[in-house]
C-alpha cells in the first residue's frame, strides 16, 4: 500500500509541475540530481538495487573527487611546484621536500607484504605530529581555558537585584533562574567530574554527587537529542526544497 502512496505522491507532484509548465525549466544536471535523490530516498521503502547503485556511485564519486582535490590543492602547490622551483634554483630548504615526498610514497608499501613495515615510518611522522598538536590543543583550548572559565563567583552578577525587581510570575521565574545560574554551573561541573571519577566506590555522599552528575548528563543528552533531531530534519527540508523548487519548480 505504502509503495503506491509514495509513487502516487511523486507522480501527483510531477503532474502538477508539468501542468504549471515549470518542469521543463529544470536543467539536465538538476534532473540527474533529482533522480539520484529519489533513488536514495527509495531506501526508505526497502533496500533495493537502485539505492545500492546510487550508494556505490556516490562512494566512487566522492573518492575520485578527493583524489582530484588533493592533486590540485595540495600536491601541485605544496609539493610539485616548490620542488621543481628548488631544482632550478638549487635551494636546500626546497629540496628538503623530497623527504615528505618519499615518506608519502612509502605509505603505499602497505600493498607489498614484504615491505609493508616501511609504511610505518610515514605513519609515525604523521601520527606523531597530530598527537603533539592534539596535546597542545586539548591543553590550551579545553583544559586550562575551561577550568578558568568555571572559576566564577557563586552569586551570579546582577541576579539578586533582578530577583528583587521582578514583577509577575514569569519575570520571577526567570529571575530565579538567573540567581541559580552560577551556582548550578559550578555544582554541575563538579558532580559531572565526580561521575567520571573511578578510584572510589560511588557510595555515600560521593554516590549522591555522582547521581546528581548523571542528571546533569541526562539533561545535556536531552539537549543534544533535541538538537540532533533539529539537524536531521533540516537536512530533509533541504532535500525537499531542492526537489520542489529546483526540480519541479512548484515553490520558489
Amino acid at each position, binding site marked *: 500500500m505504502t509503495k503506491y502512496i509514495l509513487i502516487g505522491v511523486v507522480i501527483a507532484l510531477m503532474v502538477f509541475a508539468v501542468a504549471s509548465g515549470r518542469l521543463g525549466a529544470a536543467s539536465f544536471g538538476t534532473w540527474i540530481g533529482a533522480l539520484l535523490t529519489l533513488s536514495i530516498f527509495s531506501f526508505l521503502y526497502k533496500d533495493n538495487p537502485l539505492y545500492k547503485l546510487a550508494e556505490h556511485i556516490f562512494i566512487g564519486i566522492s573518492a575520485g*573527487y578527493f583524489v582530484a*582535490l588533493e592533486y590540485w590543492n595540495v600536491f601541485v602547490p605544496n609539493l610539485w611546484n616548490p620542488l621543481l622551483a628548488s631544482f632550478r634554483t638549487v635551494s636546500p630548504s626546497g629540496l628538503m621536500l623530497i623527504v615528505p615526498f618519499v615518506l608519502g610514497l612509502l605509505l603505499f608499501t602497505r600493498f607489498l607484504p614484504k615491505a609493508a613495515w616501511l609504511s610505518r615510518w610515514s605513519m609515525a611522522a604523521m601520527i606523531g605530529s597530530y598527537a603533539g598538536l*592534539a596535546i597542545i590543543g586539548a591543553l*590550551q583550548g579545553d583544559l586550562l581555558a575551561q577550568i578558568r*572559565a568555571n572559576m566564577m563567583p557563586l552569586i551570579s552578577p546582577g541576579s539578586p537585584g533582578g530577583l528583587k525587581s521582578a514583577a509577575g510570575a514569569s519575570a520571577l521565574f526567570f529571575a530565579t533562574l538567573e540567581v541559580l545560574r552560577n551556582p548550578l554551573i559550578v555544582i554541575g561541573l563538579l558532580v559531572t567530574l565526580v561521575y567520571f571519577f573511578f578510584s572510589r566506590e560511588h557510595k555515600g555522599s560521593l554516590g549522591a554527587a555522582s547521581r546528581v552528575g548523571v542528571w546533569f548528563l541526562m539533561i545535556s543528552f536531552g539537549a*543534544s537529542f533535541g538538537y540532533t533531531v533539529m*539537524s536531521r530534519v533540516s537536512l530533509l527540508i533541504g532535500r*525537499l526544497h531542492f526537489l520542489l523548487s529546483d526540480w519541479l519548480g512548484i*515553490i520558489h
Partner: protein
Amino acid sequence: MEERGTERRSLLTRLSLIDRRILFLIIFACAAIPLLIGASLKMSVTAPVKGLYDAIDALEAGSCVWLAADYDPGSKPELSPMNYALVEHLFRKNIKVISASLWAPGPPLAQTVFDEMAPVHGKHYGVDYVNLGFKEGREAVMVSVAEDLRRTFPEDYAGTPLDSIPMLKGISSLKDIDMIICVSAGYPGIKEWIQQIATRYDTVIGGGVTAVSGPEMYPYIQSGQLVGLLSGMKGAAEYEQLVGRPGLGTAGMVAQSSVHVMVVIFIIFANIVYFLEKRRARR
C-alpha cells in the same frame, strides 16, 4: 469486558509496532506541506546568534576575516544558509573575506556563495574576496596558516599564486586577520580552530555549526573563546532575520516546526502506550 480488553490490547500492540514506513510518510508530509504552502513565522533571536552578529558588525570597513568553509554537502541545508547570510553581512560592511576549507568538498560550496553574492554587492575576486580552496592536514594547517600564510597556501583554489592577488598584500599570517569565522560540520572545524588558534594567537573566533554539535559548543561561548555561534538551520534563519535577507533558513522554519511537533507527539504518544501496556502487563 474480557473480549474488549484483548481487543484493546491488540490495538495497543498494533499501534506500538506500526509499520515504520507509515511514520516515514507522516514525517514526509509534515516537512513537505509547509514548504508547499510557503508559510513563514517570525522568531526571536538568541544570544549566541546576536553575539556573532555584533562581533562582525563591530569590525571596521576594510578589515579582513578568515571564513573557514569546513563543511560538505552532507550538512549543506544547515550550513549553506549561514554561509550566504554571513557573506551578505561581510560584503555589506565592506569587509574583505578570505575563504578556505579543511574539508575537500568545501571550496565549491563556498565558491557558489561568492559567485551568487559578489555581483549583487559589486565585489570583485582578488580585491574583495578570495577562495584559497582546500588544504589537507587539519590542525597542522591551522597552526601553519597562523604562522605563515604563503607557506601553507602557495596558491588559491584556481591555482593563482597568492603574491599576484592584490587583497592579500600585507597579509602574511593569521596575525593580520581580524576574525576567524568558521562554518563547521565537524572535525576538523570550529572546535579545533579554538583549540589551536584562539589562545595561542590571541584571535577572535566565531562561526556556525550543525545543530548536532551546537550543544557541545556552549562551554566555549561561556568561556568567551567563541564570540558567537549559529546552530543549525534555526541559527541561520535568525541570522538571516538580523541581516534582513530571508533565505533557505527562514523558508524552512515552519516545516522544521511542524516536524518537531510531530516527533514530540510521537514520543508522548508512544510512551503513553508503553505505560498502558506496562500497567496491563502488571495486572
